[in-house]
């Protein structure tokens, strides 16, 4: 009987084959240097039309979207794309420590993942960036014309940390654990070296190195196709995304915006938990993104 999964302890690689979709799945530790990233690759057994790297979010967002991300990767692979998901060093299952996380380190990891997949598949990959991963995707592909799908991308790290701090304060007040300390997030960071945001310590290194890296700048000036997905109950693109879209279109980017029902508060997992596959919003999110990415990646084929 043919084994459908195998493990190579030396290579720190596990392989399985999905008999329904005929996709080979590889879970591994990879990357240059001694501190390895965790990665998960899906390769169709038939004709491979292209490749995609999925740049993940961090902190609570990582937990919140993980299954959506997996469903997307499966859908893309079923349509003929090789898909690599990875965890930045110091996050997820990767080696390294969260205290050493910096913007530049995460960008290095993203570039390593892109290079690794390009070498493996012989083609430059398209990108999907989710929340903070949107910044990483944009920065890593700044000088390329790779198509890019962004789910609720972080527009500005300062805004990201402000929203996180607000959620932290709300939770503490709701739980009767006291109100704000009276110090700003930055003041607390500089005083203590780290601040705990709902169970996730944020260190000064990440905050300082991320400052000033806005999504509009990281996307650069080289036009490319871009899908911008907003996941809230609003009917129109939020002002920040509408402004971003207009600015990119002025630079010659082709921007498709999509609004669908999704997360309202990214920092509160489990309050109204429901199985991911059962959510209407998830089906639409995966379907819209898959159709767009497959179409755009296929367009680039020589």
């Amino acid at each position, binding site marked *: 009987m043919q084994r459908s999964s195998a493990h190579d302890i030396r290579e720190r690689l*596990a392989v399985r084959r999905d008999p329904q979709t005929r996709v080979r799945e590889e879970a591994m530790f990879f990357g240059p240097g001694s501190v390895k990233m965790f990665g998960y690759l899906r390769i169709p057994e038939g004709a491979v039309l292209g490749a995609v790297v999925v740049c993940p979010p961090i902190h609570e967002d990582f*937990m919140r979207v993980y299954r959506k991300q997996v469903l997307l990767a499966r859908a893309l692979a079923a349509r003929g794309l090789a898909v690599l998901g990875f965890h930045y060093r110091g996050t997820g299952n990767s080696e390294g*420590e969260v205290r050493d996380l910096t913007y530049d380190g995460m960008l290095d990891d993203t570039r390593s993942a892109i290079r690794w997949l390009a070498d493996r598949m012989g083609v430059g990959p398209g990108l999907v960036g989710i929340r903070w991963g949107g910044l990483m995707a944009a920065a890593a592909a700044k000088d390329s014309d790779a198509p890019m799908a962004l789910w609720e991308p972080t527009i500005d790290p300062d805004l990201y940390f402000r929203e996180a701090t607000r959620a932290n304060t709300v939770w503490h007040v709701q739980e009767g654990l006291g109100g704000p300390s009276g110090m700003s997030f930055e003041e607390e960071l500089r005083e203590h070296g780290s601040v705990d945001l709902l*169970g996730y310590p944020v260190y000064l290194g990440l905050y300082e190195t991320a400052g000033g890296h806005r999504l509009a700048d990281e996307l650069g000036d080289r036009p490319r196709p871009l899908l911008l997905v907003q996941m809230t109950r609003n009917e129109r693109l939020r002002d920040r995304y509408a402004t971003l879209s207009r600015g990119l279109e002025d630079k010659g980017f082709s921007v498709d915006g999509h609004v669908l029902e999704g997360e309202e508060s990214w920092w509160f997992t489990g309050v109204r938990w429901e199985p991911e596959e059962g959510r209407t919003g998830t089906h639409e999110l995966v379907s819209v993104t898959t159709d767009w990415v497959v179409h755009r990646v296929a367009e680039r084929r020589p």
Partner: protein
Amino acid sequence: MSETDLPRASEIPVFFPADGETLFGIFTTPADEAVGTAVIVLPGGSTPLTTDRNRISVRLCRRVASQGYHAMRLDYHGAGESTGSLGWLQLDRPFADDVQGAVRWIERQGVSSTVLVGSCFGARTALSAAAETAGIRGVVLVSVPVRDHAMGARASNDAALEWSLWTYLKRTLNLRVIRGLFDRRHRHVYRKYARAKLRKVSARLRRRDHHGSADTPDGLGLASPHFLTPLASLVERGVPLLLVFGTSEGHRKEFDRAMAGRLGEIVQRAGRSIEVELLPGRVHGFRSSFLQDAVIDVISDWLGRLDAQTSSAEDRAARPVAGAASTE
């Protein structure tokens, strides 16, 4: 203690079969001499992944590996990279099959003894699986719910137990709640609270509280039989258990309340084989990195004592019995 202070363990990704699905996990092997036992870490229902919140499962696995334990963390079926699909999580239907799959895979690697560590839904899964599994050296239950409720229903069930009908009326008759009746999501929450109270009232009317027992099978009693039965079984077998709660969390209050019933009898019978550790604040949900570290320290210390107890028991077993005749 940071990971860089620990001896470097080796981790490999693994796939293993469990009840018709293929589950994903990460297996950690100790850097130094192995004690021959694997710790399987089972996450809570709202964070059903190998990592759990802020990588607490990752950090725990690497810490126990520094003590000589193998470790496994996994994605439940239907979660993370595992196949299958997750339905609504219910505490009386934990994922014992997922654990059995992990245990069988670990046994094939030559490690036949296991410690199960779980939080919340993971704790109920650990308890249920341990009762059905041979070779369990110990079980750690972090913020274990002693009653049954579906994911997201604990608050409504607590209210059904604690609020009188007059309290329900007072809370309902205000403008905010009335406005909420026009919102689909709020109506869903109000229905949950109303149903929970109706179940409690109808159970009381049917006089299901037999023989003055504080534990009722209606899901709103003090402790579920799905908690008490496996716990009693482990106590009978002499399996050491560590329970960890936050001092101000709901699950700790539930536990204390349930001690008035059959749970109290079980704990008394267990004697020193059940330890209860209280940490300040709310452990459930791991919303504090300080408490995450404290939980890891508590578990690590307990495992150290567990290993020492077993080693001295093995030493005692190996020593010749005084007065026995030589067979040579």
